[in-house]
């Protein structure tokens, strides 16, 4: 198979990534994220009416009862209603509010869920999430530097940071709610994208050793071409199951599925372009992946 000249278009890719990151950072700094209850603190109730609910009258009931800043939206169907109270109400208000809604209508109201998160918990979760993300990136860089080489580690970390920033940017731009499950999804994106990046890096290392008298750019092109089939198939199967999750998994898991759908798509691209371009710009060469003497004996057999 003739190698596809991936790296010829690397400047297009760099501009594209640059643009995406700039947009993401701009959006994140301008309108931040639509933080979910887990991070802002506050109270949320979800109730199910026996017939379609009148949001207007629910709003006026809540206004009469003095719930300032209550946000009332329908959730999934027109019978399911979600009410969110800002931080500052006590932990008892959720249950009280359900009682008040019950007494305001003839319809049967079924309680689906109540969530109350105190302000201190919200701040902690946000901090912990950030720390987890950085720890993950740091440890991964160490592992890759140990198993491969520092240039590969930098490539991997650039690719991961790229994916995380772009996915965050997507959530900021679309205003989709960013809750704990989305944070978990983001870490899963790191895991997935890493998986992809390592597979490509592994092939580049192998080819650098194997193909003599070839330029780094050609080796990278060959490696990317060789792994292209696998990259696309794995991404496709993963996207298939994620689509199933987004369509059938219900509202509580929707954000999670979307974060992964975006992350996996971006991750597939970044493992091909971001990591490899970084390697190329850092001037990766055969010397970087020379097999240490000790391992030479069993490595010899694998060379053609």
């Amino acid at each position, binding site marked *: 198979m003739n190698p596809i000249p991936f790296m010829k278009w690397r400047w297009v890719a760099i501009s594209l990534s640059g643009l995406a990151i700039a947009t993401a950072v701009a959006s994140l700094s301008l309108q931040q994220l639509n933080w979910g209850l887990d991070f802002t603190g506050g109270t949320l109730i*979800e109730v*199910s009416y026996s017939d379609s609910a009148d949001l207007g009258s629910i709003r006026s009931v809540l206004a009469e009862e003095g719930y300032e800043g209550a946000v009332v939206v329908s959730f999934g169907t027109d019978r399911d209603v979600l009410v969110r109270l800002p931080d500052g109400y006590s*932990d*008892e208000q*959720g*249950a*009280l509010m359900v009682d008040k809604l019950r007494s305001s209508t003839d319809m049967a109201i*079924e309680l*689906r*869920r*109540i*969530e*109350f*998160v*105190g302000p201190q*918990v919200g701040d902690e979760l946000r901090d*912990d*999430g950030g*720390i*987890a993300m950085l720890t*993950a990136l740091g*440890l*991964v860089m160490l*592992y890759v530097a140990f198993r491969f080489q520092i240039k590969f580690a930098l490539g991997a970390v650039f690719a991961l940071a790229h994916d995380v920033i772009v996915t965050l940017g997507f959530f900021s731009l679309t205003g989709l709610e960013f809750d704990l*499950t989305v*944070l*978990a999804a983001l*870490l*899963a994106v*790191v*895991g*997935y994208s*890493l*998986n*992809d990046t*390592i*597979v490509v890096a*592994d092939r580049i290392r192998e080819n650098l050793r194997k193909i003599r008298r070839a330029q780094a750019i050609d080796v990278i092109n060959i490696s990317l071409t*060789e792994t292209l*089939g*696998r990259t696309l*198939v*794995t991404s*496709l*199967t*993963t*996207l*298939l*199951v*994620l*689509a*199933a*999750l987004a*369509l*059938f*998994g*219900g509202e*509580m*898991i929707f954000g*999670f599925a979307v974060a992964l759908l975006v992350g996996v798509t971006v991750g597939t691209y970044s493992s091909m372009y971001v990591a490899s371009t970084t390697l190329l710009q850092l001037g990766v060469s055969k010397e970087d992946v020379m097999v240490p003497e000790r391992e030479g004996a069993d490595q010899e057999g694998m060379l053609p």
Partner: protein
Amino acid sequence: MINHYPLWKNLLILIVVAGGFFYAAPNLYAPDPALQIAGASSSQKIDTPILGRAEQALTDAGISFFGEVIQEQGKSALLRLTDRDQQLRAQAVVARELGDGFIVALNLAPTTPDWLLQGGATPMKLGLDLSGGVHFKLEVDVAAATDRRLEQYEVGIKKRLREERVRGRINLDGQRAVMQFRAEADREAARKLVAELYPELFLDRVDEGETWFLYATVTEQTITELVDYAVTQNLTTIRNRVNELGVSEPLVQRQGRNRIVVELPGIQDTAEAKRILGKVANLEFRLVAEANAPISERQRFEYRSAGREGMTEWLERDVIISGESVSNAQAGFDQNSQPNVSISLDGEGGMLMSRATRANVKRRMGVLFIERKYRTRYEVAESGEEVAKRIPYDEKKLLTAPVIQSALGAQFQITGLDNPGEASELALMLRAGALAAPITFVEERTVGPSLGAENIRLGTKSVQVGLALVVVFMMFYYRVFGVAAVLALTGNLVLLVAVMSLLGATLTLPGIAGIVLTVGMAVDANVLIFARIREEIRGGAPPQTAIGQGFDRAVVTILDANITTLIVAIILYAIGTGPIKGFAVTLSVGIITSMLSSIIGTRALVNLFYGGRRVRALSIGGVGRAQAAAQGAEE
């Protein structure tokens, strides 16, 4: 022979897969809705007549049930119901029949057959987002606990300085006590006394003109011990209270430095649950009434301990101090190695105590333990329906009534206890009644039963659809090899469920999402292997060599790629709470089982199909034509 697994290896794989099916199997049996009956106190046994009353009540109400059984040597009984919708009504009916002495809890009884149970196979536990229930996070107020301890130091030091006639002033400033003296000699004396009295305080001397200062700071270690103590204390009390709620499998767990997580499956009345969890026991110290006191000034109380059942004591109506004033109670021994309990009061409490006891030496003082309890009353509502009402009342019982030997202050001891066991029991009750550290609710999540059931349904559906899509794609794209991959993937799912069940892991909604994700990612290892085999074929390798080389070369890549993902999953587990932990667990277990199933399982299947015989072409899709052409050229 090339590409052939020895018999023992195939057998081993077979055994592992069979084991997987065995331990995953309990999850296929849907649990029965059930009622669990237990006594409100541990002495109340459940026997056949009691169970018979419950059965009769259900029969009268027209609720069908089966499988009634007395468990744990009469500690509890279980009644299975045929209809889940009747569970709440059944609970009300049985609770009404048995009365306040019993706790009737909703339960989901597993229906795992005996032959599985005997092998140690049990189903996975469901998280609250799937089973429905309440999750609380409580926080122990560290600042309040520290303040109380500081007050205690202030009182103690003041008293000691006065006793030793050291002139100086003391007041509190943030996390330290500030002492001022007019002479350096006074400060030196004070420093020695304080160091002796409270060795855990950190002392610092500062001079400012004519005033000599001594700062006593509470060290971080003391605060840590204090918080630990307060949290453990609250854990014990909350565990006791949770039992009152009638939940079949409650979880009470410490989290981090000063948090307590409480999970109550099946509970929906959060207000009720919070009242019971948040309620604080209290104490009252009152003098024992004199025999000739008028009846209007005295009250009769029963003793609390089982050993003095039925005995009563007349106490005065006036309360000297209550639990709020008690800052600590510790069991120990006096100089004569007799068991005793040392009690510390705060400043105001000490003053009140000393004023009340000074004139009453040789009289006795009673300590009352006050608990909020509930009594159920049945009322007929306007609609004609009978509704159960829980009416709270305070139960006051006597802990002890020792003789006052001398005027008491902020610190005193209760002696004359029979044994160390009694002393530690008394200290525990005193601490439970004392407000060691207030607790607040910082997080609450309630999931109704219908949402839980819906989450299970949606989760299962996503797994099914996701799996179907992947199966179709793999078979279409990789032909015979695709079939091997799909079988390995199925085996992987079975193993994943089996391992989770064996670990006793909890399945949550994000956990199900993790399983779905695993289905998508697990084929990756197979894809890597198949891609390598295709490459080998394109490179002109004969089929058997292509298979062997393809597997061997892909293994290194698979290991590297999966270990890094595993690192991320472990971090996720370390920081995650509740449902997120569930996701991390399924992801980690899934990564490991998928590596095993594709490296070993797929290989075994491919070996069985192609190994050890002449193969002209591999059915792996994609390279079919290239392969045929290459062979055509050879021939």
